[in-house]
């Protein structure tokens, strides 16, 4: 801090002041914020974080470990945006602040190493991730015994991995034809982490779209959406991913770009903003305008009523980036209600964050665990046998929590349940593979 005049080290433009001033300090966001509800510290509330950002922008404070810590603790669940009457673009402001922190604040080496490893080297690249996971999975038993010797971060990552063998779904073909009359042609974003850990969700998405008259194309050159980078201040990297994706999709050729990952979806929809000063700005805006979450799209076109009863009691968890990030709340519920035999029960605090939040559960394990504990208790209170949620991070996090509590509750993406109702039983029918292993949280698995 010595001699560091904040006004010099932090360019005034780094955090858009006019957007910050939209916050009128009414405090309506506080009770929506998971970290504030846990800690009660104003600095861990959205209003408090905006106040800190503003103090830095005005030179009253600098990015010190304390201040950065309060921003790091933000899940970026954006529940505050839902609560905010003044329309403060909190997510965008936080991203700007995090980019500013990345530029001007030197993090401890362990944090830097973790980010470099996970965010920059592993997660965005499905090939590398899959390669990395193969030995881990086969050595799981040995690793478990060695658990005490492993660093905490690694242990936590291992705990997130679904048990059992990886699903043997083959990669999606580049085109999946529509069943019956073709009504739409859509492109599918396959994601990076999801593609490796939940290939059956992509298959289910494709099958369900096809069953509803959609021809599904899977562009080969697509890549990571860049959300992890954007949320952790690596704005330039995020922009590079965005440019690549904008170029990878032939927008004239498709009616919509479909994603089944809430976190990806909310970032894809913000490409216009992310690349606003880029050569690809207009293309990016057009791309963003075509992005649809799979539930949003299906509910919008009206689905063919599925015939196969699915006898489950389902609690639906709102992924933050679906509910708060994209305002998609009723659509997934509507789809689930269309499934015969399925009983949808209301999950108390359904739109409270589960603590997954991208890399959050690895970087902020204590808070993530507190939020997960609440989520699991809420799920247990419903008596549901299945939790449905539309985001891979939430799928992993909730499954982990259920496993640890020894609760026999299945965790599914809503499209998986729809696929079941259209008669595609698990992975075997979804793809040409023969695997029928189950994912989820079987007790003792």
């Amino acid at each position, binding site marked *: 801090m010595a001699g560091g005049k904040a006004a010099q080290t932090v360019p005034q433009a780094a955090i858009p002041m006019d957007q910050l001033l939209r916050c009128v300090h009414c405090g309506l966001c*506080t009770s929506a914020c998971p970290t504030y509800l846990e800690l009660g510290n*104003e600095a861990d509330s959205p209003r408090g974080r905006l106040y800190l950002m503003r103090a830095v922008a005005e030179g009253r404070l600098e990015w010190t470990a304390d201040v950065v810590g309060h921003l790091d603790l933000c899940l970026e669940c954006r529940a505050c945006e839902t609560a905010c009457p003044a*329309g403060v673009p909190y997510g965008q402001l936080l991203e700007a602040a995090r980019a500013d922190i990345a530029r001007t604040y030197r993090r401890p080496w362990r944090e830097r190493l973790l980010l470099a490893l996970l965010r920059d080297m592993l997660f965005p690249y499905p090939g590398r991730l899959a390669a990395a996971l193969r030995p881990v999975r086969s050595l799981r038993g040995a690793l478990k015994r060695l658990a005490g010797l492993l660093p905490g971060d690694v242990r936590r990552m291992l705990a997130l991995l679904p048990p059992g063998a990886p699903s043997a779904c083959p990669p999606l073909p580049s085109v999946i034809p529509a069943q019956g009359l073709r009504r739409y042609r859509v492109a599918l974003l396959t994601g990076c982490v999801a593609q490796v850990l939940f290939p059956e969700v992509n298959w289910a998405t494709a099958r369900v779209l096809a069953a509803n008259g959609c021809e599904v194309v899977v562009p080969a050159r697509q890549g990571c959406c860049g959300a992890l980078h954007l949320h952790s201040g690596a704005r330039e990297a995020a922009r590079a991913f965005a440019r690549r994706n904008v170029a990878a999709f032939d927008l004239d050729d498709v009616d919509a770009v479909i994603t089944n990952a809430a976190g990806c979806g909310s970032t894809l929809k913000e490409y216009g903003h992310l690349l606003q000063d880029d050569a690809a700005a207009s293309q990016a805006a057009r791309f963003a305008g075509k992005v649809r979450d799979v539930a949003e799209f299906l509910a919008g076109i009206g689905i063919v009523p599925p015939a196969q009863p699915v006898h489950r009691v389902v609690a639906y968890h709102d992924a933050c980036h679906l509910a708060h990030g994209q305002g998609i709340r009723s659509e997934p519920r509507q789809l689930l209600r269309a499934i015969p035999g399925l009983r949808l029960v209301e999950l108390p605090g359904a739109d409270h964050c589960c603590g997954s939040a991208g890399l959050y559960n690895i970087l902020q394990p204590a808070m993530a665990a507190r939020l997960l504990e609440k989520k699991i208790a809420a799920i247990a209170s419903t008596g549901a046998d299945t939790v449905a949620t539309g985001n891979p991070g939430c799928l992993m996090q909730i499954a982990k929590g259920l496993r640890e509590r020894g609760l026999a509750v299945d965790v599914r993406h809503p499209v998986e349940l729809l696929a079941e109702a259209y008669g595609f039983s698990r992975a075997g029918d979804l793809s040409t593979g023969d695997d029928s292993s189950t994912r989820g949280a079987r007790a003792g698995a």
Partner: protein
Amino acid sequence: MRPRAGLDGRVLARLAEIVGPEHVLVGNSATLVYECDGFTLERQAPAAAVLPGSAAEVAQVVRVLHAAGIPFVPRGAGTSLSGTTIPPHDAVIISLARMNRILHLDFRNRRAVVEPGVVNAWISREAAPRGYLYAPDPSSQAACTIGGNVGTNAGGPHTLKYGVTVNHILGVELVLPDGQVVELGGPVEDLPGYDLVGLVTGSEGTLGIVTKIVVRLVREPEGCRTLLAVFDSVDDATRTVSGIIEQGIIPAALEMMDNLVIQAVEEAFGFGFPLDAAAVLIIEVDGLEVGLDEQAEACAAICRANRARELRTAATEEERRLLWMSRKKAFGALGRLAPSYVTQDGVVPRTRLPEMLALTAEIGRKYGLRIANVFHAGDGNIHPILLYDERNPDEVRRVIQASDEILSACIDMGGSITGEHGVGIEKVSHMRRMFSEADLAAMLDVRAVFNPRGLCNPGKIFPSPGGCVEVQRPRRPAPA
């Protein structure tokens, strides 16, 4: 001034022992966020903020601060619109945010026992499945806490029919400013003795810190009708309000929004308000289904008689919810029109509303300010919202002058300077205009009993420290 030992390392260490070191916040970056609440015209960071987790911890913290002569300020969600939680520079904030449990719901006796940090809306959320609710519904109810509601005797749209906070509080546990814990009132009605619960409610934290509250639960009405009446003139809208009250109709809520507010909330929530309307009234009647249409029609007739250009009834619960959300979040939505605003909270007799609104508009013109109006019309409780840019010192000055004129007009019309937001730090200077020195002396006598050293939330409500006010004697001298 009494010498103060100050917040030294020893006191901080003691506080950390009581609440745990992670719940004692010191240093510029930690305390800065506590320098203001929903009222931002004045700011002052505290010397420290402490976050106790139980009533026992609050009491211990208070005892330590009392012994050290350090002033302290209780704070809930920090949504006060009058600066009730702004600390003096050497004070410690005692945040009740961690004490946020609903301890007990007793539907048979229609009571709930809650901690002070419980958010207002949570009680109704928990009671709703059994058909009950907590009636006072301040517009900030999604975030404001019951402890804070007790402090300011909070109101809300539906207090027109259901009454304000004090009508719904049966008992409190109070930590006195010397750290003693005392139960006032209780779960049972009308306990003998002075009504200290009534005294503490609305005392803005100057009599102690409430650590537990027994509230009433109210049976949800069987049904309701929510009307939206659109007017081409503010005057017609306010005349409608007077007309409804005069007819002896007491709706559950009777709210007004003027054009500026309509613009802001429409942009925020897209309810479908007509953007060219001069004013809209939200009129809600509730009760038994068999009586609702009759009640609603009576209100509608008065609207039509006052040239309402359009009348709409919320057709679905979802539409009603959105309409109320638009109304309740209107303050915040005004953040879309200007970087800052200050909300006034004057009250006038309902018959004087048309006059008061006209005057407000005139004051706005005089000072070159945009003033938006969204308020509890049925109660005569106006909320002129003065929009400004805090970076413009001249505008800030004009805002203060205009606010002052508005409040003076309320007093002149036989009203009050605050209907629900409290005096706080903001309206301290207006108290002498509303009350005589003798009136204030009586209140200060009360404060002296509870808070003799003035350590608990100093500088609020009263214009000068206790003891300095001269008592007015009766005009005719009594024979010796």
